[in-house]
């Protein structure tokens, strides 16, 4: 089965494969990339992102962005991969860079990222080849294509509205000054992003660290912004000195503290005068000293 995306949309293709419980490989080509999804009985079991360029949704790059690997380590691992013919994920686990559980989570993320990207392709071609696919070892529970598709469609619907809340170009995210929260009370995705704010101010790396898709991450970031926990600034405002922001924050806090001390010193004086008026002034002591008239 093959054809043009403009004739038969990607959601319909996924739905068809899912409802008919087909096994095989769905190749989607367009937007200068080629992505292959592998199905077993209508469920997505693996994805093969385009390897022609250093795409961000490749596992190695994801690991670098998330801070599990350095660029140098990735280069060595890729060389090793070519030599030994093993999958990168396997090498990462073998080398002790990540656990199997983390690998599993990032591979899920890779599937979702690839699907969301595929959904954004407006023009291109698709091809579905029927054959028996054996699920990879990391795929303990295959993903339902229709469920993923629904999430993807929601992404397409909501993304423009959510994105409009952030600066149009690149932007950076910082935790708001002086705010501390008990992260346990936050929903899981917000909690993950909140924790990742400390890791990087680059939202892309932040979401990678949080193991969230761009859409999931930006949605959680929106919620955190709304709660007043983080602030978003356009990238141009980035400071060169890594501690400049912290120093400016301290300076600001000191200034606020001085203003606070002055304001409350005045308030204390007013309150002291008021306490004198209501408890020690002639009128007040007249009310409390009336007993003397009996003697």
């Amino acid at each position, binding site marked *: 089965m093959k054809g043009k995306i403009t004739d038969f949309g990607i959601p319909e293709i996924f739905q068809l494969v899912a409802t008919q419980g087909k096994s095989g490989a769905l190749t989607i080509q367009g937007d200068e990339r080629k992505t292959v999804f592998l199905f077993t009985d209508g469920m997505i079991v693996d994805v093969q992102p385009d390897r022609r360029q250093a795409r961000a949704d490749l596992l190695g790059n994801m690991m670098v962005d998330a801070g599990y690997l350095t660029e140098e380590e990735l280069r060595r691992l890729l060389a090793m991969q070519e030599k030994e013919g093993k999958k990168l994920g396997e090498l990462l686990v073998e080398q002790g860079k990540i656990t199997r559980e983390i690998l599993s989570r990032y591979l899920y993320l890779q599937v979702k990222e690839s699907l969301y990207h595929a959904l954004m392709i407006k023009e291109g071609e698709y091809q579905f080849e029927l054959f028996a696919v054996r699920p990879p070892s990391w795929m303990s529970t295959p993903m339902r294509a229709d469920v993923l598709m629904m999430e993807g469609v929601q992404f397409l619907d909501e993304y423009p509205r959510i994105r409009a809340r952030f600066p149009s170009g690149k932007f950076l995210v910082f935790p708001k000054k002086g705010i501390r929260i008990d992260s346990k*009370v936050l929903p899981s995705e917000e909690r993950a992003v909140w924790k990742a704010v400390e890791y990087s101010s680059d939202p892309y790396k932040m979401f990678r660290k949080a193991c969230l898709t761009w859409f999931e991450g930006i949605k959680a970031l929106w919620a955190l912004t709304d709660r007043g926990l983080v602030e978003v600034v356009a990238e141009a405002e980035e400071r060169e000195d890594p501690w400049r922001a912290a120093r400016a924050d301290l300076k600001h*806090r000191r200034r*606020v503290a001085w203003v606070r001390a002055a304001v409350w010193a005045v308030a204390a004086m*007013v309150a002291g005068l008021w306490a004198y008026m*209501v408890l*020690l002034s002639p009128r007040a002591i007249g009310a409390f*000293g009336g007993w*003397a008239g009996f003697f």
Partner: protein
Amino acid sequence: MRKENPIGLRLLVLTIVLTLPVCIGSLFPEPCEAGGPFASYAESVRARAEKVVAAAGPGKEEELGKQVRLLRKEMHAYGILSLNSVADLVYEKAVGEGWKRDGAPFLRAVADVAPLSVPMWAWLVKEDLLGGRMQDLVRDFDGMVGAVRRFGPALLGYASWLISFLAAAVCWFAVWASIALFLRARPSLESDIGRFFRFPGGGYLSVLAAAALFLLPLFAGFGLAIAACIWLALSAAYLRRAEILMMTSVILLLAALLAGGSVLHSLKRLTGEVQRGGWLGTEGYFPEEWPDASYLPMKGEERAPISRLVRFSRGRAAMMAGKAAEAEKIWTELVSGGGSPAGVLNNRGIARAQQGRLEEALADFEEALRKAPGDGATLWNAYQAYLRLFNLERSRALQPEAWEKVQAMAPYNLRPAEMEQGEWIASPLNVGDIWKSFFALRGDWIREAGESDIFRLYFRPLSATVSLVFLALVWLIAGAWKVLSMKVWVNRTCRGCGVRTLIVGSREAHEFCNQCRSRIAGASNDTGEPDRRGQGIAMHTAYVRACSVLVPGSGWLWSGKEIRTMVYGILLSLSLGLLSSSIGALDGGTIVADLERTVTFLAIGLAAVLWLAGSVAGLRSFRKMQRELGILPAGR
């Protein structure tokens, strides 16, 4: 080492030091002068009383004793029990001539003619205590208790003092507790105000808004109770359970303040504007005006419970002025009015005896004895009457009991062996009857509370009924705000380092931030990263220190010792309440003023010691907690 920020504290200390002398100086107004106290008495009594006052002074002890005996004889002839003004004048003279420190023996000497002067006895007790004279102390204390039991205004005055003192203490406690709790809640409140209103300007507007919220009730002219309630309600969401208990106790005490104001107002209604010299004080001070119920603040039927007592006073005044016939008429009216208590019959007997109708007088004494068989005064008068009628057999029969009872009549210090014929012992206004009429007079206590001075001062602009509803509402709103704070996002301030954490579903376990729980101190490091936590800890410590100085005991609140704070607050408020109630009486008569001056100094000393102790101990407790959390070096 962190640098703390002491400049704010220095400013506060400077302000206190500059304003303290002004405040203390204004506490001591000049005492009032007394004058013309014997004008209404009979000429012979007046002359003798003036001689007693003239004889008082160092080197004239013998003369004073002689004059006192003569005056007392004259007083008894007119049925006068006490000339309290004698004690006042002797004291004034002692002050004027500079022998006040040696004045105790002279006042004790004139106690025979002014036995109902409670201030005099209290002053003597104070002198005995200060001088360590235990024997005199027992005797003077007996005199004081006797005077309180027999002199109408005394017991009412002590009740009024106790209520005024407690009311003042409640006011101080309300101010202290509400400000302490507001300052405890302030950091979180300030952050939430900024968050809720989304103030721009990086926190400056939040600071101003929180301060404005605090000052709003003051500038709006609300009474102390209303202002305290507003502060408590604002703080409720950020308080611990024990602090909520403290808040509840303030609200309950403010309700009690309403009741106290009501009782004080009722006492005022009972006595009229003239408490000492009016109908109530006839026994000790001759009334400046003839005792009459018409000057009482209540009207017609309302006055009924005390009109009989006022007429009794009028009868006593007539007796003391030497108008025996007029006095007899009043006593007869009272007897025919029903009830005819023993005291009325005894007094009518004296009035008749003064007019030479001894047999009729004897009949009254006998009748009085049937009603009150053991009454010393009546026994003595009957014994005297029998003697004068030469019924020696009957007088001999009465003598032992009469002598025994009359000697036991504290505080009069009567010595039968020295007493002569014609010295009659009158019956004063019964203090028990005054109390009964006080409770009979009390009507709608809420209305009376609304008319009291305390209410007008501390509950404006509300009415009495609305005030009660307001107090209940404040408690409910505070409770609702506390419950709501567990459901919505609010800031919590870490007690250890002051960092604010935005949380929902708060529990008291969240009072310390994760870093404090992990014992992470603020410290500079080699990376060049500024020590934000260290700065936060320093600023928080400075804040708690300032709170501790201005509102002593706050340090304990921050270290989580609420019950200790509350006990301390009660002690501090009692000492300050003593100050408020005593400086109000500094112009209440020279002896009273002198006593109150002592009490004022004592209260100032006590309050100052407690203030200092509360500031230091609270702060030490807070720093100990910081050390235990590992956020303050052990040496600091």
